[in-house]
């Protein structure tokens, strides 16, 4: 029996103490009809066969290298020391720190996490983590609705399409209207946003860099938002905040995003974690757990879950959210990783990523590929002569994993998003440029669409 300690003698002894004569007797409360269901799951495996099975499955995957895939999740350098420390079994096999006297390890690490996220975003209050970036966007919108008591949310299509979908799913039953504002020339126009604004708007949600990779004019967007008394919600790539202006600097009320890039592997999309930081004014509306500092009876500094009156286990149907388990272990990976990299390392990662992406873009253009110019961070759009998913598949045949398809709703025709990180080597760039040139050229003339007009380069680029 895998993982079970019970010997036949143990079982006999325990049954006798309980005063029943079989294990089945313990289940006598269950209606007879429920017993012995036919459950079609294969027989158990020894450990070698088990790992062989998993290895066989893994062998049917190809593992990307070179950090060319983006779209909300990217491969970045994670030093060996990070998982070594974050995955210590004392951390991994604990749960929510309900007993602070014996959970200072995770409570303090979470306090450090909150401090780091506050530092990155510039907003003073961070919760302890949420599920992921997309659901954090939805929770941020709900927060804004609670705070402002208004029932319309304005969101730029520069926000990750999946985050917008999640938000729509969350908001639908609550009769909260969503106004989506399309990008103009790859970014969100303050004018167009302003046209959508009114005193029924709870918040404006803008992502920076946006889903396509380009930088938004966050300060003017935030100003326009505040003009109508709405909250400005910045969806941010936390790694980019090593170098980009922080949400606090441009006046955001709430910053949310996905923390994967801070030190979690790509994991086919999960688990990573969502983060949320807010201004002091919004503290009591914040969903999720929060760790606070206090002292113990001896006067020693100590950390504890606090302000729990916001949460479901205290407030039940009146809670700010139903969230209970969060994504603390993934946040711990990020905490240790940020401490391992330090500000200098984080700046190096961000800077190298930006440089690699710009080098890639330049090389692609030099090979006559259709790079959409604008001020981009480390992802950008290339228009292609074939459907995006075909391009991605053909690249995969070259063992290059790149090319997040751009949805037709962006009106950019066939297009892919390319990314680069500090892991992108010159060879990766050359191979991608070569393969993409070949794929893009090598196409039936009658299949070729007219590419949309190339967007003008932004001034300071």
């Amino acid at each position, binding site marked *: 029996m895998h*993982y079970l300690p019970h010997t036949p003698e143990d079982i006999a002894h325990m049954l006798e103490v309980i005063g029943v004569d079989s294990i089945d007797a313990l289940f006598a*409360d269950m209606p007879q009809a*429920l017993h012995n269901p036919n459950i079609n799951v294969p027989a158990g495996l020894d450990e070698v066969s088990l790992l062989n099975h998993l290895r066989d499955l893994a062998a049917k995957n190809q593992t990307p290298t070179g950090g060319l895939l983006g779209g909300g999740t990217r491969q970045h350098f994670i030093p060996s020391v990070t998982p070594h420390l974050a995955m210590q079994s004392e951390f991994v096999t604990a749960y929510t720190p309900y007993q602070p006297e014996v959970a200072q390890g995770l409570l303090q690490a979470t306090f450090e996490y909150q401090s780091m996220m506050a530092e990155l975003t510039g907003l*003073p209050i961070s919760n302890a983590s949420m599920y992921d970036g997309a659901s954090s966007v939805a929770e941020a919108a709900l927060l804004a609705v609670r705070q402002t008591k208004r029932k319309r949310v304005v969101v730029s299509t520069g926000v990750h399409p999946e985050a917008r979908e999640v938000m729509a799913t969350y908001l639908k039953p609550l009769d909260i209207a969503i106004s989506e504002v399309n990008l103009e020339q790859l970014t969100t126009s303050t004018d167009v946003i302003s046209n959508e604004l009114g005193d029924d708007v709870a918040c404006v949600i803008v992502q920076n860099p946006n889903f396509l990779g380009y930088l938004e004019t966050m300060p003017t967007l935030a100003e326009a938002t505040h003009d109508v008394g709405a909250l400005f919600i910045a969806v941010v790539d936390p790694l980019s905040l090593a170098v980009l*202006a922080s949400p606090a600097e441009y006046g955001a009320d709430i910053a949310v995003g996905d923390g994967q890039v801070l030190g979690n592997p790509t994991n086919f999309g999960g688990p990573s974690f969502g983060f949320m930081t807010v201004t002091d004014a919004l503290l009591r509306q914040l969903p999720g757990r929060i760790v606070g500092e206090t002292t113990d009876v001896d006067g020693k500094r100590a950390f504890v879950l606090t302000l729990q009156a916001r949460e479901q286990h205290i407030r039940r149907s009146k809670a700010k959210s139903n969230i209970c388990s969060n994504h603390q272990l993934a946040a711990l990976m990020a905490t240790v990783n940020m401490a391992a990299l330090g500000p200098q390392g984080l700046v190096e990662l961000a800077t190298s990523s930006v440089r690699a992406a*710009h080098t890639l873009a330049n090389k692609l253009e030099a090979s006559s590929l259709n790079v959409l110019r604008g001020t981009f961070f480390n992802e950008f759009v290339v228009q292609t002569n074939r459907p995006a998913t075909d391009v991605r598949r053909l690249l995969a045949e070259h063992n290059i994993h790149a090319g997040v398809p751009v949805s037709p709703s962006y009106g950019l025709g066939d297009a892919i998003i390319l990314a680069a990180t500090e892991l992108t080597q010159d060879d990766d760039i050359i191979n991608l440029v070569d393969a993409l040139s070949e794929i893009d050229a090598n196409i039936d003339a009658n299949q070729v669409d007219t590419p949309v007009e190339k967007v003008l380069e932004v001034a300071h680029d």
Partner: protein
Amino acid sequence: MIKEPEAPVTTPITTSSKQLEADFPLIFERAKPGRRAAHPPVREGADLADLLGADNLRQSPPKLPEVSELDLVRHYTQLAHRQMSIDANAYFLGSCTMKYNPKVNEEAAKLFADIHPYQDPDSVQGALELLYNLQSYLEQITGMDAITLQPAAGAHGELTGILMIRAYHDANGEGDTRTKVIVPDGAHGTNPATATMVGYKVVEVPTAASGEVDINALKDVLDESVAAIMLTNPNTLGIFETNILEISRLAHEVGAQLYYDGANTNAIVGRARPGDMGFDVVHLNLHKTFTTPHGGGGPGTGPVGVKAHLADFLPKPRIKQEVTTDGTRFDFDEDIPHSIGRMRSYYGNFGNLVRAYTYICALGCEGLKDVSGMAVLNANYLRIKLKEAGYNVPFDRINMHEFVAQPPDGLKTLDIAKAMLDYGVHPMTVYFPLVVKEAMMVEPTETESLETLDAYAEVLADVLKRAEHDPDFLHEAPFDTPVRRLDEVKAARQPVLRYASEPS
């Protein structure tokens, strides 16, 4: 950092003991500008101001800690020593199923760690096959017709399920008339909170003297205005709802949907299926029953299963299998006509789905049945032992995987819990469920040995014995933990929620 001995000098010594006063430092307090641990590759090139525009850049780098690699290692290794865990301590946290998390799961998860959610699906056929298999195993285990692996936790599964129920009623033209969700008063807080998030009014039904839902009270509130009943079975008292088939009949009679909160699946896994009980929607907590680690409070993983009539409302995408003459191929299925949409990005907590899959493959069906058998055996044995030790068991009957006890009259559960800490034992869940005063909710799980159960009972007996001799002892405990009782009021009244670096 040396100045804080891991365990302070507690013998009476005449000079004042510095280290007794020392706070364990924050990582920020170990830092010094210019230090660093990790060395990433660096690409030289243009200035960021040139590439991105100076206006777009932040004024100064974030003030994150700067520490050497060894100081980093010492810090988080010492922090790990300030933490109880399953691997080092008995941790019978009721409702949380703190069972052993197999190490082989971690090996399995590493094999898949570096694949990307937006790769070409043909390049991740192994991952998709695994997800497909897991979907079908969970269908089998729950007795449901279709599974989504997307939800990120139990509460997220609840939200997914209740949103689907709402969409279903909407599709039937009953969206406006069904306005309530019924939950028992013993329900976990996420149940009512979820109902609220979906715009429902919450109606609580009381617990009967048997420890089960008061079925008459339920009948009183059950009518066509009810969208769903949310139940845990066994319930949060660890008692199986013996009327479950009747409840299911009543619910369906008025067109309500029956929701299964799967937090307690460890009691029945391999032995009974919520689908067979009449539930329409089920969530599982893979981080409980299926051993995925969730250190510090997560990640959870909360797949949801539904009966056929709800399958068209599942979130997108699911994983499908295509059998062609070329062989079998797996892909994402976005074609879900009435889908509620999407609950999170990508496909779920994949890393944990791999771990849960590994666990199921290791055990197989017979192994799963042993899990519930031994979990229930352990819990009943421990119930008897705690009674012998002097604790009350308000609903004293054969329980399932957990039970709720109370301290003898006059004693506080909080004090008992704190006293346990000095024995190296993690307390049970305390003050939940709310329907029992001074509740001590004990869930030993199947991976604990008889000897550990006996030792646990001895600790609890010893606490009572000491309390008798020295009544103050209980109020002062713990004595030997890294910190002692905390001032929680201060934490909430004067919230300090981050390290405040000196202005520089």
